[in-house]
């Protein structure tokens, strides 16, 4: 059933006019319904479904060959359209956000607004731990990795971080993944566990 429907969509979208035009219009209407719901007020309503549906349609038509039939055609088409829509909304929403921290080469800053602590000894222990962590970060990570990790900690979207480091979304994910592995190994070797940090900051 799904296979037949999927093949029918593909045949119509690749076929001659007027069938192709009718299929595109049908798909456009479906996407508009889905995108209206999925974009909703996300990112302050930065992008409306009507603004993005045409770009989404073009992306779908350009990538028909990548549809592998593991799900229904409309599910796949909505996945493509949602990425187009959310990506555009994020870029618009974060366009004016200050990203000064991501431009600094020593991006990771932990000294900010640390809560007061009861004893001098405990404060010294905590400061020593933070210094040790910063040292590990500086020693183990490349500048791009530090910037990417900073962006993740600041909850910036990967696309925005990618723009700042002159890369793409997937490369940023790999950058962060490699950084996490390096830090995990270095912290393990130094005997620093999550529990040590929890105790120091308790």
């Amino acid at each position: 059933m799904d296979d037949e429907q999927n093949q029918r969509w593909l045949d119509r979208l690749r076929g001659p006019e007027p069938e192709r035009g009718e299929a595109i219009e049908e798909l456009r209407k479906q996407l508009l319904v889905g995108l209206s719901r999925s974009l909703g007020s996300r990112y302050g309503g930065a992008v409306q479904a009507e603004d993005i549906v045409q770009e989404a349609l073009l992306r779908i038509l350009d990538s028909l060959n990548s549809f592998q039939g593991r799900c229904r055609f409309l599910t796949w088409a909505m996945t493509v359209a949602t990425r187009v829509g959310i990506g555009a909304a994020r870029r618009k929403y974060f366009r004016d956000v200050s990203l000064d921290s991501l431009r600094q080469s020593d991006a990771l800053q932990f000294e900010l607004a640390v809560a007061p602590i009861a004893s001098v000894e405990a404060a010294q222990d905590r400061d020593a731990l933070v210094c040790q962590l910063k040292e590990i970060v500086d020693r183990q990570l490349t500048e791009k990795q530090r910037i990417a990790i900073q962006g993740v900690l600041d909850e910036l979207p990967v696309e925005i971080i990618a723009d700042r480091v002159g890369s793409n979304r997937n490369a940023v994910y790999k950058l962060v993944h490699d950084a996490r592995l390096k830090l995990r190994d270095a912290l393990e070797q130094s005997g620093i566990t999550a529990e040590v940090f929890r105790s120091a900051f308790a």
Partner: protein
Amino acid sequence: MWNAQEKINKLMGLVTSVEMDELDCDECYGRVAEYAENLLLSRGYTEAMFAIQRHLEQCPCCRDEFDALMEGLRALPTLDEPS
């Protein structure tokens, strides 16, 4: 302004949860339609589905897109299971 403790906790969370064989964003994107449909139609999980679930737990951007996708798919009447 960031609270240092919150930031460090988050960093430690990223570090302690890392796995060697995590999916990246492109790999997740390539399979997420199937994953969403399986959830919507209450179909079974495969090993690949668990890998997608793990990526979505780790990657806020993919998670955000996935949540939006699910909302959009629920608005489409044509995704109901055929009788």
